[in-house]
């Protein structure tokens, strides 16, 4: 009997083919097609128009701002992430469970609300806002606000990657280093950091992709001042609303490429260092 020849948990050939086809069709329709559309729109008027679209002052300013925001937010989140996961994984303290929950907050809160929180905190009606403004610091509708919102939204990526990894590795390696005479700093640089480097890189990659692509939270705090507070995602929307499709898609293609590069690097990391990366190792 044919049915007795395959394992009880695998389906018949027809069912298997149907399932695979459905998945592939779904992916093609919802993921691949938009990606292709972005690039084909971007290059519709030729490579020259594509470059021209990227070369406008607004587009250039958006690219610079996005790079700047990522260059500030990602390193800060690396430091915060390592601190938080170190604290959580390597010693016991009161309120630890609360801290773990708090780290996940940005994932469960809508980015728009994250942005609104900063408006409430630093806006004209708040206590802090007018005081800062009087002292010459603009937060809202300026770069600091965008950086803050981005840090908030991307905070969990590094920490969530490192916590399970560091918990898994325990403290024996650090204790060994200390017993051999290393001080705390040497132990961190020579033992702890090398132990977590691939997991950290993986977290940084995801964090960076999100930092550059964040729309909602940034849109609320940016004020969308042309050439000053528009990041790439915001500029894409502005171009599009102005019927400048080529420029919009040219800029969008940069984000799409970032996504593709991230995906490739992520896959390579998972394939090569899967057991040292918490997300795929657990």
């Amino acid at each position, binding site marked *: 009997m044919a049915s007795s020849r395959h394992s009880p948990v695998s389906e018949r050939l027809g069912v298997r083919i149907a399932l695979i086809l459905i998945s592939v069709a779904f992916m093609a329709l919802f993921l691949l097609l938009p990606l292709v559309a972005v690039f084909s729109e971007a290059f519709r008027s030729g490579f020259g128009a594509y470059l021209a679209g990227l070369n406008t002052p607004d587009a250039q300013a958006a690219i610079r701002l996005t790079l700047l925001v990522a260059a500030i937010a990602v390193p800060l989140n690396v430091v915060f992430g390592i601190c938080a996961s170190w604290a959580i994984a390597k010693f016991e303290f009161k309120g630890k469970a609360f801290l773990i929950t708090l780290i996940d907050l940005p994932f469960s809160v809508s980015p728009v609300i994250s942005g609104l929180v900063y408006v409430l905190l630093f806006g004209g009606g708040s206590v802090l806002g007018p005081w800062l403004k009087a002292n010459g610091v603009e937060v809202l509708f300026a770069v600091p606000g965008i950086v803050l919102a981005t840090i908030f939204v991307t905070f969990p990526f590094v920490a969530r990657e490192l916590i399970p990894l560091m918990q898994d590795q325990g403290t024996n390696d650090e*204790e*060994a280093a*200390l*017993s*051999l005479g290393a*001080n705390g700093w040497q132990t961190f640089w020579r033992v702890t950091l*090398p132990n977590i480097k691939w997991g950290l890189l993986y977290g940084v990659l995801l964090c960076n992709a999100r930092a550059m692509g964040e729309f909602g939270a940034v849109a609320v705090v940016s004020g969308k001042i042309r050439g000053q507070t528009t990041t790439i995602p915001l500029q894409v929307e502005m171009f599009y609303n102005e019927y400048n499709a080529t420029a919009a898609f040219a800029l969008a293609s940069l984000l799409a490429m970032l996504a593709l590069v991230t995906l490739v690097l992520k896959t390579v990391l998972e394939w090569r260092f899967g057991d040292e990366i918490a997300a795929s190792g657990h």
Partner: protein
Amino acid sequence: MEVRVSNVRKEFDGFAALKDVSLDIRSGELIALLGPSGSGKTTLLRLIAGLEMPSQGKIFFGDMDASEKTVQERNIGFVFQHYALFRHMTILENISFGLKVRPRARRPAAGEIRRRAMELLDLVQLSGLEKRYPNQLSGGQRQRVALARALAIEPGVLLLDEPFGALDAQVRRELRRWLREMHDRTGHTTVFVTHDQEEALELSDRLCVMSQGAIEQVGTPDDVYDRPASPFVFGFIGESSELPVTVGNGELLVEGRSIGVPVPAARPGPARLFFRPHDVDLVEGDATLAGAVHTSRRVGGTRRVELDLGPANHRVEIDLPFDHPAGERSQLSFRPRRWQLFPAS
């Protein structure tokens, strides 16, 4: 170096893992901390290392009070059960680590560090593996690297936490013998933790039996085996059987009947009799311990017989040579040849 643990108490969140423990470790000896899990043996080792700090009491290294010193200042070598080798470093880098992290004033030159690491690699019989990474080595090899790494800093005391616990039986026996030879050659004061009594008996000069955060007995392996200080030690070290008895008329009575064992010096009243399965004589007669054979299994060169004694069916174990004719019988009688009495609890 001598190590003196003086009235040390250690609490974790209000739970006393060690209660008022004192122990003198002699210079150059190999001493085992032996006990079941939860007995506090690892805690004691980590306190000596400085990886934990005592809640009360002091620890002396020679004449120096080490209680307040950090783990770095104590200059100890620590070997972990799961090796804790640095996985991103080669074997040579692992062994050199302790010398490389020294402040410049005390750090040997790079060539000297390398020479010493290679020497240690040779000592642990792993020459030629210096460029490998820990995950390319077997468990036994890794533990030898861990030991070489600990020895590299020329520690005053060597501390090993269940060093062979993660290895299979064959490798464990081999490494045990090897560690003994290493110790005899280098003469480090060595403390190792184990829950394996065979390991402790075979390897150590003295052993310290622990239970529930306290020391039960400290002595040579023969001392502890032949003259256990408490029912716990008797039961934990080696095989043993226990029987409730009464002392009366200068002899032992089991359920009112004499078993032919005189005890002129014992205090009359109820007591607990302990004996080892191999310390018995098969005898015929009335004044014996007699019982029905419950199971009889051959274990290698001996036959282990479980007997149910008397009307109360007290289960005891005795050993016979595997080819002894009595092994076929359904009733056996015997007397313990060597035994020990403890007060009834």
